[in-house]
């Protein structure tokens, strides 16, 4: 699936969740099922510090594709992380650079990306893009 197709799939999934409670329950479920990062990958380098919660993002290049793994100490944040990992992981840097980074807003979670939340998510999205831009430049 392309990034766009994955995003559309997530957006459609969320369109059935009208109530905030359902939405949060779904995110919590996603958070619980996302595989945790091994402790040795939770390094200072991978840490995105927020006042509210902490996020770890690990990236590696495999066969020309960027593989992301990520974690958070807060479940709702981790649920959103799992969406980001699902959508962007396993694609080429070029595809990620060209992708729309705003789909989280389209599933009604815009407030989770506000800088005042300080939950590390906004920085995580920027970081994903940064990895892609850097990998793309190195390739060229």
């Amino acid at each position, binding site marked *: 699936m392309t990034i766009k197709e994955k995003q559309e799939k997530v957006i459609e999934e969320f369109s059935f969740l009208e109530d905030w409670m359902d939405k949060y329950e779904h995110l*919590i479920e996603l958070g619980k099922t996302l595989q945790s990062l091994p402790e040795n990958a939770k390094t200072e380098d991978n840490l995105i510090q927020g006042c*509210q*919660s902490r996020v770890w993002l690990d990236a590696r290049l495999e066969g020309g594709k960027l593989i992301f793994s990520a974690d958070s100490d*807060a*479940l709702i944040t981790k649920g959103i992380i799992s969406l980001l990992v699902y959508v962007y992981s396993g694609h080429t840097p070029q595809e990620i650079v060209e992708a729309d980074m705003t789909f989280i807003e389209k599933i009604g979670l815009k407030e989770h990306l506000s800088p005042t939340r300080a939950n590390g998510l906004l920085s995580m999205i920027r970081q994903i893009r940064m990895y892609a831009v850097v990998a793309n430049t190195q390739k060229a």
Partner: protein
Amino acid sequence: MNTSHIRDQFPALKTKVYGKPLVYLDNGATAQKPIKVLDVLTEMNRSLNGNVHRAVHYLSIQSTERYHRARESIRNFINASSENEIVFTAGTTGSLNLLAYSFGQTYIKPGDRVVITETEHHSNIVPWQMMCKRTGALLEVWEVDESGALDPKKLEKIFDSSGPVPKLLSLPHISNVLGLINPLEEIITIAHYYGVPVAVDGAQGIVHKKVDVQALDVDFYAFSGHKLYGPTGTGVLYGKEKFLEEMVPWQGGGDMIESVSLKKGTTYAQLPLKFEAGTANYIGVAGLGAAVEFMQELNTEALEAYEAEITKKALQELSTIEGCIVYGQPGTYYGQNYEKTPLFSMAIDGAHPSDIAQLLDRMGIAVRSGMLCAEPLLERYGQTALLRASFALYNTVEELEFFMEALKKALCMLR
């Protein structure tokens, strides 16, 4: 206590969030304002706005008069001996920055020591770190024990240790994480015995405890208006006149001068204006005066009894939640009674504070989560975030019960 009569005076409490009634339990961050305060702000903005101390016209005279009246109300509220000891600032943080700068420039030399506690809000840490960097002084830390109490022996050890006697001790009246009332009288007595002046961060303290600066013999006391049911952007630094008189000003500009000359230099205004550069937040200050009058009209004893009742009930209820640690339990430590105010910072096994706070938010409950601007204290307890519910005089027992129910529901979803 008749909370419904009090609640009626706070229009913000009628706000609906996500269509649900607001349960506001983030009073440790900021409190809502009574009509009495809102009316003053509206009236002054609408029809009495003239810059203070500047002109002979009607509006300026009116607002100047109110500005002075507010200073008198606040002097009376904390029983300072003179209005010269009441400096208006933008808030506790502004007060502590003023103090750290002016005290540092006046009294601190390289190698001098200043003492703070491990329980400070960042606002009572960073200004001192900056001051130490400027002056070459050392910042010493009075460590807190697991219970949240401060061992006076440890303080004496710092005072007794080699090196010069510290120039100042700065500590909170009530930590914004622990909610315990520090035994200021005993601590000030010890510090003064060693000849060390004491500054108190009263941001949380002034809200819950009657403060008499003369009875406490405290040298400096800083607080904010907005936690005391007054306007944001207002605050006070109380300082003993003998210190304020000697201290150099912090900021320069209008109102803090006596005479400005490009040839002869500048002479400064008398206290307290020496420390109030630029156009004051005179409308806010008038609102703060009204907030203080509002507080004085309340029955302090009934209020303290009511807060004690809420505190006792909340601690009891929270103790039934599995894996819940509430930091700062009331009790007797080192021979001193540590009373607790209705502020509860907690860590709950298997549920992250930020998750709980987001779920509570959707149920209409406002609480705080995160590091609570007290990273060193959280580190001391091995935590990276806490959940904090803080009650004010308008919160009800029903709200506490609703909070407990909602908390259990959130935990059910998360654990």
